[in-house]
């Protein structure tokens, strides 16, 4: 599919937020989808209709509404499994976000309740991450290392913003490797299949934080070669409050429950319990029902537009942005400056002007919404010796005209601070 068949104006009409104006009549230029995406009518209406007409608790209610709600909730799981090419629907675990998914996973290592040797972890064993990770793929592993005495190691990042991949960092002592599929700051897409092959060669497991890739590229769980993949709904035109941990069934079955409570059990006695099979073993309590159903509608929407078409459109936007930003004096892109192996996220600095000031003026005077700060990736910013960056991130509904607005805004920012 070519990008010429991509009708961005038609897509924008699906998103009610683009029909509003900001205070003082400014148009909204939303370049912050890497943070969270906007929602189309199809998602909003599906959630509204479910709340209005079909809502009840799932899995336990013996009545019509209970059955309708359960069908819709489990139907969403089927849709998501299909969307990411999961071999089995039972491998799709609903969590509240990608952070929870990664914490769930980290909890199952070095846990006395898990005797599977692939998950045992102690002093001398190694956990491998990278310097470009989001805090949600750093802190759970730091906590695990503290609990178990295992060693935390990481791949560096090159000056160009690429993973400084050294296969030798993954050793016979490595139990788990967890890296981003696509960086939320640099836009870099990592060679995950290669890293996965190396991890498996030494008998380690590998997890991917795919929060920034699943919304933007066709992603197939089996092709990635990973054992676990985490992603989140709100970055892929779905609601907040719903995320996914995908894992190979055989591994999920050997992992201990994370949260205990209703619906995750098979039978409970006063002194012990047995647990439900996956996926419900990991879904204690009333889940985010309507959010899961909304995510199901989101993957329907993305599928209808086509992930190939979205990817091609974003590629065009990224090429346009990288070119346009070159015109801005003193602007330095933090991340790859070519289109190879990168997604539609562009972070940058302007000499002598703090990103918070850049973001404030872009928002106030041009309606341009970008993210400023360390984007929950402080170690990556330390690596580049900068406290913060300004980040523009694009999605299916963005236009080259909006990139022009960003560039005009940046020129104005430079005038204010000249």
């Amino acid at each position, binding site marked *: 599919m070519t990008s010429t068949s991509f009708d961005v104006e038609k897509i924008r009409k699906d998103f009610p937020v683009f029909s509003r104006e900001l205070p003082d009549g400014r148009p909204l230029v939303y370049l912050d989808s890497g943070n969270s995406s906007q929602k189309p009518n199809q998602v909003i209406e599906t959630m509204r209709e479910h709340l209005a007409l079909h809502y009840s608790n799932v899995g336990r209610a013996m009545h019509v509404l209970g059955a309708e709600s359960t069908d819709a909730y489990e139907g969403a799981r089927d849709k998501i499994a299909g969307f990411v090419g999961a071999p089995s629907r039972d491998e799709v675990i609903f969590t509240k976000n990608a952070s929870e998914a990664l914490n769930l996973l980290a909890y199952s290592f070095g846990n006395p309740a898990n005797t599977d040797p692939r998950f045992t972890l102690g002093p001398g064993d190694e956990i491998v991450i990278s310097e470009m990770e989001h805090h949600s793929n750093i802190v759970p592993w730091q906590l695990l290392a503290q609990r178990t005495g295992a060693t935390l190691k990481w791949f560096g990042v090159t000056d160009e913003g690429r993973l400084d991949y050294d296969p030798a960092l993954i050793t016979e002592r490595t139990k788990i490797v967890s890296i981003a599929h696509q960086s939320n700051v640099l836009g870099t897409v990592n060679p995950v299949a290669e890293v996965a092959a190396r991890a498996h060669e030494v008998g380690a497991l590998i997890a991917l934080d795919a929060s920034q890739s699943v919304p933007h590229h066709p992603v197939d769980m089996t092709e990635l070669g990973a054992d676990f993949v985490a992603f989140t709904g709100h970055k892929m035109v779905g609601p907040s409050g719903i995320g996914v941990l995908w894992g190979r069934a055989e591994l999920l079955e050997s992992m201990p429950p994370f949260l205990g409570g209703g619906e995750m059990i098979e039978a409970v006695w006063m002194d012990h319990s047995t647990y439900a099979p996956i996926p419900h073993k990991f879904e204690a309590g009333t889940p985010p029902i309507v959010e899961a159903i909304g995510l199901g509608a989101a993957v329907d929407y993305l599928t209808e537009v086509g992930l190939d078409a979205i990817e091609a459109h974003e590629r065009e936007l990224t090429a346009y942005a990288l070119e346009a930003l070159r015109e801005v004096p003193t602007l330095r892109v933090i991340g790859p400056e070519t289109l190879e192996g990168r997604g539609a996220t562009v972070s940058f600095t302007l000499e002598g002007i703090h990103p918070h000031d850049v973001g404030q*003026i872009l928002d106030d005077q041009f309606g341009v919404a970008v993210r400023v700060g360390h984007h929950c990736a402080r170690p990556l910013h330390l690596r580049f010796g900068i406290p*913060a960056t300004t980040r523009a991130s694009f999605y299916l509904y963005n236009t080259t005209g909006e990139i022009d607005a960003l560039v005009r805004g940046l020129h104005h920012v430079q005038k204010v601070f000249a």
Partner: protein
Amino acid sequence: MIGESMYQELILEHYKHPQGRGLREPYDAEVHHVNPTCGDEITLRVKVGDAGKILDVSYEGQGCSISQAAASVLHELATGSTVDETLSVVDEFTRLMQGRGQVEADEEVLGDAVAFAGVAKFPARVKCALLSWMAYKDAVVRSAGQ
């Protein structure tokens, strides 16, 4: 535009030409304050002389124009005043910043710091303006404890 009212000429002037920047000897107390949500940070020293006279406020830090200009204005206002006088300015500045734009600034007390009145309308930026002032208050309290 609302933002124009925040980036007052005086603030931009102090940001581009910070007054009293750099850490100096001698000093009675040194503090390091950070703003975890945005990463702004400041290291600040005070030297207090006889009769509570502030002999020097020296600082080093990184952050946005608001946080850096606020430190510069603080240096100008505090140096040469007394501890008691400056603490009442800190209180008035805090009251202004936390007033959500509804508080009338007392220009007589605040002097140049009145230029930050526009910042109070941006809750996300109030902590930027207050960073160095809170660090100063902390440093003065510590110097008195010696």
